[in-house]
């Protein structure tokens, strides 16, 4: 050791440690980038929506009125109830469809499929998760739409059912992946102990694995909900985009995200309407933040237990 130190000139050694300090600083800046950007998102979206929140917004109207009429000449109203219910109905439908199917698929892939089959399923699911949302929207528009009109004999096929199915298919790969990870995280000794007692595979899953991976599965569902809630292009194209209080799965609705995407291009920067759209953005940001935080706390719950 001492020889190496002596061989290198003191300058070279100093330089090495100098670069080490520089690198540490640069890497640290990269490390905090995610925090900086999350803060930046909040600040910049808030900055643009600020004027509306503190001057023009009627909080009661904002949350309880179904009338979103920002372009009305004499009396523009900014009620988000219909948009909230639109988002909720589509996301709810998607979650109802995707949760049982993805959990079932995750259990099959993690517990029943052989090692080779498992790899292949996981690759398929990864590919499904990669399909861009605008392509999903296009599928809703051009394939699902005529299919729903044909099957259910309704005049319009762009509705909650369409957007819900599309969103469910989109969210399912993510939920399946996270749920499968949660199941795999249960130590093999649990399985071995139960099987040594004579339990069948299903008994092991039902009595041992599922209770042990409860939190991870819950996180998977939450992240799926978050994905559905924040999805924009697919919902914009498949939901029909008309302001309605949803009454049946065949009603067209409009989502919060889709409203921003459809209207932002037509507003003058700094106008009341423009600021109201940024306020919707703050609302979306806040809700997904809470969902992600909850999912993280739930997952942390398992780590503490084990």
């Amino acid at each position, binding site marked *: 050791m001492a020889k190496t130190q002596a061989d290198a000139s003191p300058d070279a050694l100093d330089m090495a*440690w100098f670069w080490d300090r520089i*690198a540490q600083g640069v890497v640290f800046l990269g490390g905090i980038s*995610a925090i900086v950007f999350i803060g930046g998102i909040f600040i910049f*979206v808030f900055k643009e929506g600020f004027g509306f929140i503190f001057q023009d917004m009627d909080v009661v109207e904002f949350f309880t009125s179904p009338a979103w009429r920002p372009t009305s000449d004499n009396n523009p109203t900014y009620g988000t109830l219909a948009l909230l219910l639109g988002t909720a109905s589509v996301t709810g439908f998607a979650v109802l469809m995707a949760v049982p199917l993805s959990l079932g698929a995750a259990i099959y892939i993690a517990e029943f499929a052989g090692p080779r089959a498992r790899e292949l399923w996981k690759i398929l699911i990864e590919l499904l998760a990669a399909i861009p949302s605008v392509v999903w929207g296009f599928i809703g528009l051009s394939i699902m739409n005529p299919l729903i009109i044909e099957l259910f004999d309704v005049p319009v096929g762009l509705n909650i059912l369409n957007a819900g199915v599309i969103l469910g298919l989109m969210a399912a790969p993510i939920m399946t992946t996270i749920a499968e990870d949660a199941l795999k995280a249960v130590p093999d000794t649990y399985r071995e102990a139960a099987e040594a007692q004579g339990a069948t595979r299903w008994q092991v899953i039902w009595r041992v694995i599922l209770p042990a991976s409860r939190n991870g599965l819950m996180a998977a569902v939450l992240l799926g909900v978050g994905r559905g809630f924040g999805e924009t292009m697919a919902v914009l194209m498949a939901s029909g985009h008309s302001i309605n209080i949803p009454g049946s799965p065949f009603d067209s609705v409009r989502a919060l995200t889709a409203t921003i*995407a459809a209207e932002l291009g037509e507003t003058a920067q700094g106008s009341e309407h423009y600021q109201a759209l940024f306020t919707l953005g703050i609302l979306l940001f806040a809700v997904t933040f809470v969902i992600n935080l909850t999912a993280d706390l739930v997952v942390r719950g398992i780590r503490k237990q084990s």
Partner: protein
Amino acid sequence: MSAEAPAPSGGPSMFAATARNIQNQRVMTAVKSLFLGMTLLLSTPVVVILGVLLYKGLPAISWEFLTADPINGMTAGGVFPALFGTVCIVIVALVASVPVGVAAALYLSEYASDNWFTRLINLAIINLAGVPSIVHALFGVGAFVLFFGFGTSILAASLTLAVMTLPVVIVSTRESLQAVPMAFREACWNMGATRWQTIRKVVLPNAISGILTGIILEVSRTAGETAPIMFTGAAFFLPFLPQSVYDQTMALSLHLFVVSTQVPGVPDELPYGVALVLIGMVLVMNSVSIAFRVYLRRRKKW
């Protein structure tokens, strides 16, 4: 209840299946088929849909479709400006996000200890990945288009996408860094190397292929996004190629949205063709990334 199973050697044996065993086995088989059915129910529609896209879109695709400009108000012609624009946006986004993402992963994997600050960073990464894409678009408008004054341009669109896809780079890079055995680092430190020398000469070279896999994944993600670029740099129709990063451009994903919803009188196969080009690009990128990963795992010696 089913009848007693015949014991293998005539008389009852302690290894013979009891009625209870047989019933349990049946339940298990039923449950297994149920779950297999659910898995198929999730994957078949998608495979069918891809088949339909392929069937309807393939006739539209030709060399000319990929290299010609859209004409007649986007109802005919090709997608070249959109394809070129998407490539530009992806390249600029990569240049912006890869160094930051790799630095962040290096910090988390090589420097950070397990404390509240690291947890905060991880929470920020999860949130960055979970924020809706349209909120990223609003951020891009507020920050890059207006505050930094880039206007609606490739630069603004790419930076918005770079922030959005940062978690993809960070997470995959961190994973490949952590896969490098600790012993490699310890051996290097023992020779008197600094932390940075160790990272540059030992950790990064051993993790580089895993990092590349993550970057390919990011390319696929960036190419497919629509909402974040709608208001930050992608134009509905602009039959010129961009001259600098301060120009607007067409993009494939937005082009699909436009031809399928905004333009009247588009022939049926045109949007299918655009969708097929987009999804082809994304799936090829993903397959390359997966193949690369499988190959690396096979070759791994430690």
